[in-house]
């Protein structure tokens, strides 16, 4: 019996030590990983705010399942990265950026990935006419969906509404 306790204690000590070592390495590498992630995202962010500084915000988005990340373009506004399920199913979601100015105007819209959507129909969410229908409008204005690509475009506007709701809750 005494032997059992020694063994269990030994295993626990080893596990504890390894946990400590891991959290140390994690605390060193995590900022670098985050920074690299932002750096690769920046290429897209500068399309909307060409000369802004970007910060990845740590906010609670658990109420808004489509929001993946929130970036602050310091002094200008906020950029949301959203991922919504369109016509291509959950395995190939539509991923896009939607930017909101400090006064609640949609400043920019960039689709990063809509490879799961039918080309010629759902893929229209990445094209200029749909983008023009969003940029410049204010929170609360309705965004028109695309005929023939209702599911894809409705999924996108749904995500935009969630981003707007999050914006109103946190940055107003």
């Amino acid at each position, binding site marked *: 019996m005494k032997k059992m306790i020694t063994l269990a204690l030994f295993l626990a000590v080893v596990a504890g030590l*390894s946990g400590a070592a*891991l959290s140390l390495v*994690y605390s060193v590498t995590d900022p670098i990983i985050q920074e690299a992630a932002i750096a690769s995202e920046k290429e897209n962010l500068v399309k909307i705010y060409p000369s802004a500084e970007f910060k990845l915000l740590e906010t609670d988005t658990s109420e808004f399942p489509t929001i993946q990340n929130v970036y602050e373009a310091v002094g200008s506004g906020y950029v949301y990265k959203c991922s919504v399920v369109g016509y291509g199913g959950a395995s190939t979601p539509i991923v896009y950026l939607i930017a909101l100015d400090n006064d609640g105007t949609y400043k920019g819209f960039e689709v990063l990935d809509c490879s799961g959507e039918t080309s010629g129909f759902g893929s229209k969410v990445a094209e200029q006419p749909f983008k023009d229908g969003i940029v410049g409008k204010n929170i609360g204005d309705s965004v028109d969906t695309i005929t023939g690509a209702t599911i894809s475009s409705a999924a996108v506007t749904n995500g935009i509404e969630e981003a707007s709701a999050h914006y109103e809750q946190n940055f107003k």
Partner: protein
Amino acid sequence: MELVSLFIGLTFVNNVVLSKFYAVCPLLGVSKKPKNALNMGYAVTFVIVIASIVTHILYHFVLVPLEITYLDLITFILVIASLVQFVEMFLKKTSPEIYKSMGVYLPLITTNCAVLGVALDNISANYNLIEATVAGLAVSVGFTIVIYLFATIRERLEIANVPESFKGTPIALITAGIMACALAGIAGLV
């Protein structure tokens, strides 16, 4: 419907053994007798299905809320090791014959890439609990089918006239290669 296509996709089209090389070691080691191969398949199926459920629950309900997801690897491997230990004790009591015939390959299920691989893949594919269970089942059924087929082919190879330098492992690997080719033929199915 989505679950069915997930199942078929993981069992045949993206069979983990032949397309991701998980579990190549037991494939070459155990599969000399079809019967042993089947027993191995059953044991692995049990471990993988339970492991994918347990790791899913631990990851999403313990590691994520506590923000210690960097402990995933240690947690998973300990879960798998204890499951294998359980299977070993169970087999030793209920059927000593199977236990004996599987020999050293039974404890080696711990280091079977398929078990840990499925657990990690389930997390990165963001499956829910049901999908994770189905994925675990599909992978292990795929593994069992391949290891059984492979064992029957190898039994034939034993009596075939193989060039001397290809005898044993080399011809077995080339057989696996041809099986992988055959599977690649149905790649567009799902």
